[in-house]
């Protein structure tokens, strides 16, 4: 069923009895052309673009829980393409362009809201860095404008502009950045893939790979073996565990990243604001809650929850940036399992096992990348060649000295 205004009117007038389940719940076949391991945002996007762009519909997505039960439902919903390095920025700008056409493409309301993202700067050196970043963004076809203090005071007058230690001098704004309803992204991709014949198999955990003579012939699951010509893993925080079944070690550690939501407030934060003198970012959801976060806790974790010192650190950042936030009460705190790579950049690549592909290392920034990640991963799986904007995202880049260290802080996960 195609969703439209006419459909809503028709259903509204006939008692809403015609709506169908959004996707099927099929039993898996014995064998597929492609198996995607992981039914999160990236996995579902991969299946969707395999079907729509490459015409591959003999595809199954295996998910150990329910669709979208991982990080796509646990993030802070920000989309942006304000990257600096040539290995990153064209990829994230492709993602931004895909976000912009996404709802029309998969016929689902993902509430893409381009209300802008502002990265504040507090010193002359930071202003220079922001100008350089804006130029890099513009060169890659994105948009970036420098806002001075007067312009910022009109947009968000409640910021602590005259902070003793870190006065706010201005900000780098990407007007096309913003937020997207995260669950709807998973549901939209799932529905789009399902309608084109992709089998979405839930409650099916992959427990091993069928690898013979260096070639992957399928996966072992908690309920039997399924054959496949190509197996594409994208399991984010569980990357180390799943690729370990294939005997592969990755340049990835799993960490915990916390996020926070306050009670609902009147509209105050127009877009996304990030602090330039500490790690803190905030946006306001459509329900009015302030959604904010900061650094990862910094130690390896699979617990999906963090600890209080990081909560304190994030809240201190918030108080330094906008003291008024101290009046808001935090209602919800949660932690997501993030796959931190050694240089803070992701991987979309083949592996040393033929027929086994890997997508991961998204750090704390996987959500914004969802469309381009699926698009480029599908391209790699279908054609065997990396997509032109993802050629740097290789697993062997550390051996070649070609790390993509966006922050320039060194090759260790808890520095990013």
């Amino acid at each position: 069923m195609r969703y439209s205004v006419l459909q809503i009117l028709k259903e509204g007038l006939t008692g809403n009895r015609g709506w169908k389940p959004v996707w099927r719940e099929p039993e898996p076949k014995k064998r597929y052309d492609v198996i995607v391991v992981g039914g999160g945002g990236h996995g579902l996007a991969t299946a969707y673009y395999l079907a729509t762009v490459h015409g591959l519909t003999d595809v199954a997505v295996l998910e150990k829980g329910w669709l979208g039960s991982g990080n796509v439902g646990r993030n802070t919903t920000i989309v942006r393409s304000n990257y600096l390095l040539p290995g990153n920025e064209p990829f994230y700008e492709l993602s931004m362009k895909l976000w912009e056409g996404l709802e029309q493409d998969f016929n689902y309301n993902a509430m893409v809201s381009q209300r802008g993202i502002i990265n504040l700067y507090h010193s002359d050196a930071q202003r220079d860095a922001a100008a350089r970043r804006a130029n890099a963004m513009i060169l890659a076809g994105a948009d970036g404008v420098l806002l001075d203090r007067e312009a910022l005071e009109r947009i968000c007058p409640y910021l602590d502009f005259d902070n003793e230690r870190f006065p706010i001098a201005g900000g780098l704004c990407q007007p096309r950045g913003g937020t997207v309803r995260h669950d709807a992204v998973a549901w939209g991709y799932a529905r789009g893939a399902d309608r084109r014949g992709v089998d979405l198999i839930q409650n099916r955990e992959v427990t091993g790979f069928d690898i013979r003579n260096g070639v992957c012939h399928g996966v072992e699951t908690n309920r039997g073996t399924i054959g496949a010509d190509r197996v594409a893993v994208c399991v984010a925080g569980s990357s180390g565990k799943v690729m370990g079944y294939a005997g592969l070690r990755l340049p990835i550690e799993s960490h915990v990243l916390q996020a926070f939501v306050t009670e609902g407030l009147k509209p105050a934060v127009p877009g996304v604001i990030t602090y330039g003198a500490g790690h803190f970012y905030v946006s306001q959801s459509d329900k009015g809650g302030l959604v904010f976060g900061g650094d990862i806790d910094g130690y390896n974790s699979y617990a999906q929850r963090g600890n209080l010192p990081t909560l304190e650190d994030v809240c201190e950042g918030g108080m330094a940036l906008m003291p008024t936030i101290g009046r808001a009460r935090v209602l919800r705190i949660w932690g997501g399992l993030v796959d931190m790579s050694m240089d803070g950049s992701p991987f979309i690549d083949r592996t040393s096992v033929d027929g086994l592909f890997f997508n991961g290392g998204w750090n704390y920034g996987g959500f914004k990348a969802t469309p381009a990640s699926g698009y480029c991963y599908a391209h790699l799986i279908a054609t065997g060649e990396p997509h032109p904007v993802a050629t740097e995202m290789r697993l062997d880049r550390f051996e070649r000295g070609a790390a993509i260290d966006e922050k320039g802080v060194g090759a260790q996960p808890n520095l990013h």
Partner: protein
Amino acid sequence: MIIDHPLLGPRDAQEFVILGDASLIDRPDWQAEDSAQQFHDYQHLRDNPAGEHRELWFHEQGDRSWLVVTRNTLTHEVLKVELARDVAMARGRGR
């Protein structure tokens, strides 16, 4: 998290910074034939286990000792704390 320091007793994990997997103690031999490959693996690849994990912590806000902490990454429970010096000596790293 509370880290039970072998010399100082229970201390708040906030006093420490973590470096990562304790395998970083096992620095490869730079004169080996395949030392470039060994150093790549040493620096960049990780076991990243869900469960027991041995890792290096530095008591930066304390006595500045290096510790090997065995911790469960699924529950954050600290299972065992040793002086990194003792672990390294036991592995034949000392002189």
